[in-house]
């Protein structure tokens, strides 16, 4: 799902690789080693596992509690790991020099496991930081995912699988080959012996595994949840890149994904900018709206090309779904264009500065355009006569379709987040009286020092409504592409899982009535500013309630007319087509996948 970024799954794979399959581990145990050294190495592993479990139960901003069964499993895991750590720590007189490699293969494997696990935990923790006052501060849009119930359950499951693999070490080390754990051998193990403690610690690990298994049987963890955990990237963003014209089509898809990740992060970060900041400008909003209009347009082109490509031998449902997604992306583009038009008539009290979100949106428009058009030098400034990339160039082989779908999926997702981020920023700026509107009074009659005046509540509400419509349309496009991504098993399918995990909601309004002016919140409320007609009547000294009411009615009718006219300009030829939604057999089977039922291939691999 990410390009050139470390993901948590990398460290899980490394952990499993270091531990090896049960057969490998048993062989390593049979080669013997110093029991104290092995206990110490196991203690390292147990401590890191304990930190993971502690993290998921005390994480900041945990909005939704995990269910009772998983809550119990988490508590059992904590107590099991604490008990194991106490047992392993008890007889260890001194810490081993961490730079000195262990003497036995088994201890070396456990040391490597502890290191991989610790690095993986560091990766998850990059999404949150402590400010100078000690308060935790979120650093990326991924933290709600890290902290979500599905990922908590997936993490506990991974810890349990690891614990289950390690648990047999107790008897293997305590009863080396030949002794077989005979009664005589057992008698020799008194309660204080190192071997006894190691065995008991491993029994606590087995307890952890059993507790999590019980929770899983009650409320199964889906393969999608495990996949989502593995896909969590480090918070550090990839560097900004612009195409140089030499990229192969796969490189262009990667470029789109990177640009989308940067735009998505910038959208998330824009929520931190206070509405009074001079960095909040109409220039940024205009860039985002213009660029997102183009991104949606390019995504529609790409999805039609992909539909054309999959028509040849691919499943008909996939083609229909891609066409449906293309229509949805086209609608998103049209709605973004309405936002762009509306922004022509307003300004902010500071101008010029352009945000990271504006830069990210522009880059995304450029990268999606490079992918959509055949000209390797295509730019936003390209003149007429550029051809759309042929479907076979977009995905030369059927196996190339998933990456192209992933690129479009990322682009649509970023476009959605930009819509809601800017909507919220516009709303906050309006509340802070930062937005000015073009004066529409007849300028040949009135001279005005500036051709702008304060915004009226109905006007800012109308603008917010247009953002909502753009956000809704972008959300629908993202959902349609997500169906295709799941169907072709594109790597971006975890985006849908991430949204589901965090219960992403954007407080969308109901599908537009476009009658903002008549909405109860839009007019007639105490504190509303009067419209231009009503205001003029006030200035003329009119106090008649009837006249003032009629003036307010005229103002509202004018606002309604503008909104309806704006909506009427929306699609030219973008009516949704009737198409069968994609239903992915893959997705259905994944939900029922049982992480306990099968071993992943990596588990069998020797390092």
């Amino acid at each position, binding site marked *: 799902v990410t390009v050139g970024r470390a993901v948590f799954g990398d460290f899980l794979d490394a952990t499993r690789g270091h531990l090896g399959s049960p057969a490998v581990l048993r062989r390593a145990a049979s080669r013997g080693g110093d029991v104290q050294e092995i206990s110490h190495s196991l203690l390292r592993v147990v401590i890191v596992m304990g930190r993971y479990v502690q993290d998921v139960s005390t994480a900041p901003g945990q909005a939704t509690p995990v269910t009772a069964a998983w809550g119990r499993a988490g508590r059992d895991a904590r107590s099991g790991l604490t008990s194991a750590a106490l047992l392993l720590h008890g007889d260890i007189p001194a810490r081993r020099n961490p730079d000195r490699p262990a003497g036995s293969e088994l201890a070396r494997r456990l040391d490597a496991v502890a290191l991989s696990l610790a690095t993986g935990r560091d990766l998850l923790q990059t999404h949150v930081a402590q400010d100078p006052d000690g308060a935790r501060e979120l650093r990326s849009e991924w933290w709600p995912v890290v902290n979500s119930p599905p990922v908590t359950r997936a993490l506990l499951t991974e810890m349990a699988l690891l614990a289950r693999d390690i648990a047999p070490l107790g008897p293997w080390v305590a009863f080396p080959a030949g002794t077989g754990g005979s009664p005589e051998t057992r008698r020799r193990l008194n309660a204080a012996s190192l071997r006894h403690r190691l065995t008991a610690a491993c029994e606590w690990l087995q307890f952890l595994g059993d507790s999590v298994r019980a929770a899983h049987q009650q409320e199964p963890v889906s393969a999608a949840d495990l996949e989502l955990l593995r896909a969590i990237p480090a918070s550090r963003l990839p560097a900004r890149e612009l195409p140089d014209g030499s990229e192969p089509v796969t490189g262009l898809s990667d470029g789109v994904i990177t640009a989308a990740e940067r735009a998505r992060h910038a959208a998330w970060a824009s929520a931190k900018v206070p509405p009074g900041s001079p960095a909040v400008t109409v*220039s940024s909003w205009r860039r985002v709206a*213009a660029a997102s209009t183009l991104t949606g347009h390019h995504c529609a082109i790409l999805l039609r090309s992909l539909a054309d490509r999959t028509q040849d031998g691919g499943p008909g449902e996939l083609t229909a779904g891609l066409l449906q997604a293309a229509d949805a992306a086209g609608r998103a583009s049209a709605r973004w264009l309405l936002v762009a038009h509306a922004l*022509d008539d307003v300004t902010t009290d500071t*101008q010029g500065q352009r945000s990271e979100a504006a830069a990210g949106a522009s880059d995304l428009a450029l990268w999606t355009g490079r992918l959509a058009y055949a000209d390797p030098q295509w730019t936003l400034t*390209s*003149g007429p006569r*550029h051809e759309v990339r042929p479907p076979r160039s977009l995905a030369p082989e059927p196996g190339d379709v998933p990456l192209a779908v992933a690129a479009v999926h990322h682009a649509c997702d970023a476009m959605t987040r930009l819509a809601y981020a800017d909507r919220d920023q516009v709303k906050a700026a309006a509340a802070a009286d930062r937005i000015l509107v073009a004066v529409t009074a*007849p300028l040949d009659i009135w*001279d005005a020092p500036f051709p702008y005046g304060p915004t009226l509540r109905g006007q800012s509400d109308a603008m917010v409504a247009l953002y909502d419509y753009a956000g809704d349309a972008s959300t629908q496009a993202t959902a349609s592409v997500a169906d295709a991504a799941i169907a072709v098993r594109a790597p971006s399918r975890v985006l849908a899982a991430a949204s589901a995990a965090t219960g992403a909601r954007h407080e969308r309004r109901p599908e537009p009535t476009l009658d903002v002016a008549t909405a109860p919140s839009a007019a007639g409320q105490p504190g509303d500013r009067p419209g231009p007609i009503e205001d003029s009547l006030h200035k003329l000294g009119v106090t008649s309630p009837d006249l003032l009411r009629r003036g307010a009615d005229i103002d509202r009718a004018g606002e309604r007319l503008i909104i309806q006219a704006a909506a009427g300009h929306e699609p*030219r030829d973008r009516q949704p087509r009737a198409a069968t939604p994609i239903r992915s057999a893959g997705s259905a089977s994944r939900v029922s996948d049982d992480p306990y039922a099968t071993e992943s291939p990596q588990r069998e691999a020797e390092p």
Partner: protein
Amino acid sequence: MTSLISARDRLEQAAGLAAVLDAAYDAFESMRLAFRVHEDPASSLFAAFVMAAASAADGRDAVAFAPSMPPRRHHGAAGTGPGPPGGDSSERFADEAARLSQLLGAWLARAAGSASDPGDRGACERAARCACEICDLLGGAGP
């Protein structure tokens, strides 16, 4: 197209900072309105027009808040609108808009150099950058 030619004429005849700002405002607004009329998803100039309209609005706003900007009066150039797109091809319109933005950038850069008020200077510089962006987007050489 007529509005662009008229805006160019006004700009060429503008004398003094206030007149340049006033003419620049109308030039940006004329271009913005015309871009909006010509932007059509089926056209291969769609991307350029959508982005150029944003730059035109930014340029218009920049000069609108310049301290020496005279009170707005109705001049007719921007107010009459660009007319329907049918008469001119998008390519011809883009060429004309590129020429106007090039001229606009040059005049604004010159105005920035001669403005004594830092507010005017900053406004002219920002607006000149917007004019350059439009020129670049439309394939012009830039001022």
